[in-house]
């Protein structure tokens, strides 16, 4: 009998790629007509578990495509990106890029942005809890000479998106249309949108942002210190009233603290 590793590699290929066990020299039992149907249980499980997990993580995408087309997409995606871990959560990570490449230039190109939004929601749902609120006294205590080097912390659940398609309205439609019904909306027209996703006590929250707010928060998320943010103001890339804007996001619980040094 082949070594265990060879057996496992061959069986995985038989199940995932639907190859013939005989081509791998596998002696699976029962060695008769029953084998193919028995293998079918594992082949079906591999497809169904993957597709069901994807549908659960991308409910808006399923509404857009319908259950049957999502299953087809899931099969193509699984062939290109087999599950990378024992945690089914991880299978969705590559879907936005995969879908973007599949639909790029066509009428359903917006689906890539839908998938990006839903993956951001997935990440926000499992991100760390944080009860911290921005403390102005902590900022006041930082010596003026150190202001340029200090940076701000965003709430761990915050995700920022700049999309090429307006997906905010599609998201709202998902939550208002009765379950099981198709989304009765015209296909969106290409138009840039900036979004903030975060988890609050009430659940997932999605809001539209002005481009300048998005760019400012993205710079903070990237670790840019206050000095660099001031440079962005000079360049006209972020709001000129930087102090007021930072205070607004602090009051909203999006900025939760500062880091010095």
């Amino acid at each position, binding site marked *: 009998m082949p070594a265990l590793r060879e057996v496992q590699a061959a069986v995985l290929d038989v*199940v995932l790629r639907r190859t013939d066990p005989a081509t791998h020299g596998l002696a699976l039992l029962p060695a008769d007509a029953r084998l193919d149907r028995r*293998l079918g249980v594992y082949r079906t499980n591999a497809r169904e578990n*993957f597709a069901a997990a994807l549908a659960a993580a991308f409910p808006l995408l399923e509404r857009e495509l319908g259950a049957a087309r999502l299953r087809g997409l899931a099969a193509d995606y699984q062939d290109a990106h087999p599950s990378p871990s024992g945690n089914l959560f991880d299978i969705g990570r590559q879907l936005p890029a995969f879908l973007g490449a599949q639909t790029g230039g066509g009428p359903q190109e917006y689906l890539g942005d839908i998938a990006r939004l839903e993956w951001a929601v997935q990440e926000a749902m499992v991100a760390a809890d944080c009860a911290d609120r921005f403390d102005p006294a902590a900022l006041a205590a930082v010596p003026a000479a150190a202001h340029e080097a200090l940076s701000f912390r965003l709430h761990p659940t915050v995700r920022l998106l700049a999309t090429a398609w307006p997906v905010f309205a599609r998201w709202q439609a998902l939550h208002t249309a009765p379950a099981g019904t198709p989304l009765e909306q015209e296909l969106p027209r290409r138009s840039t949108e900036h979004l903030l996703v975060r988890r609050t006590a009430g659940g997932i929250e999605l809001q539209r942002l002005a481009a300048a707010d998005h760019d400012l928060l993205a710079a903070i998320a990237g670790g840019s210190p206050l000095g660099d943010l001031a440079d962005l103001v000079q360049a006209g890339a972020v709001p000129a009233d930087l102090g007021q804007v930072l205070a607004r996001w602090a009051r909203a619980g999006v900025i939760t603290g500062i880091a010095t040094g």
Partner: protein
Amino acid sequence: MTTGASAAVTQPVPARAGIGLRAVHHDEFLATRPAVPWVEVHSENFFADGGRKLEVLDAVRRDYGVSLHGVGLSLGSTDPLDPAHLKQLRRLVERVGPALVSEHAAWGSVQGRYLNDLLPLPFTAEALDHLVGRVAAVQDYLRREILVENVSSYLRLGAGEMPEWVFMTELARRSGCRLLLDVNNIYVNSRNHGFDAGDYLAAVPVELVAEMHLAGYSVVANGAEELLVDTHDAPVTADVWQLYATAIARFGRVPTLLEWDARLPPLVELVAEARKADAWLQVPDARVA
């Protein structure tokens, strides 16, 4: 194996029947607080840094015994154990302080590709040596005993060298784990592979069994044969209840989990199904293990 260094156990898991707590029942469970002594959750569903699911689990663990049941560690794989998966599991164990932690005598991945399913191992000396080492490594990493469950299977990866029950018994003896004996899986395999389920139960040493599972199966027409598939989507069948009675007679009162993962019934029906198992466990002459 080193033991005893994880977080304090919250509530114990008594020798009674618990239920598998799934996401669709989370809110109702917390609102109604059903009278079940313990629950089992799938570990991977709580691999998170924060969020609602962990809040639910924190609330449940204060009042109920908790068992963490893994489905994704791929214990029998010949790939290295996934360090990220192990790290998340240990973090969850430390947070929850479960009375029981369990996984499967199965594999679901190789060469970095995962099926997210439980495939059988060949019952060979090579596979046994491999699995013993893996279970021991996991126990060392978690600093506690784990339970390992026998799985349903629909084919054999070669003729094998020993019966399944010898494989499982040797696994437990050599690794220091104990067994989560899935009675439904034994029944399913006995029908699919043609052995006497009673022989299986009779061969497993009493002291190695720490928990049992019950679930419903489906019958799939497979040409001339009827193939039994472990679908966890139906009530426990009469023949499995009968085998469970035999198991209790041999192993005594052991914590028993009513598994139901697909086409889930209302919570009240799930609890009622678990109470059937509880009734078996309360039979006066059932020995206390």
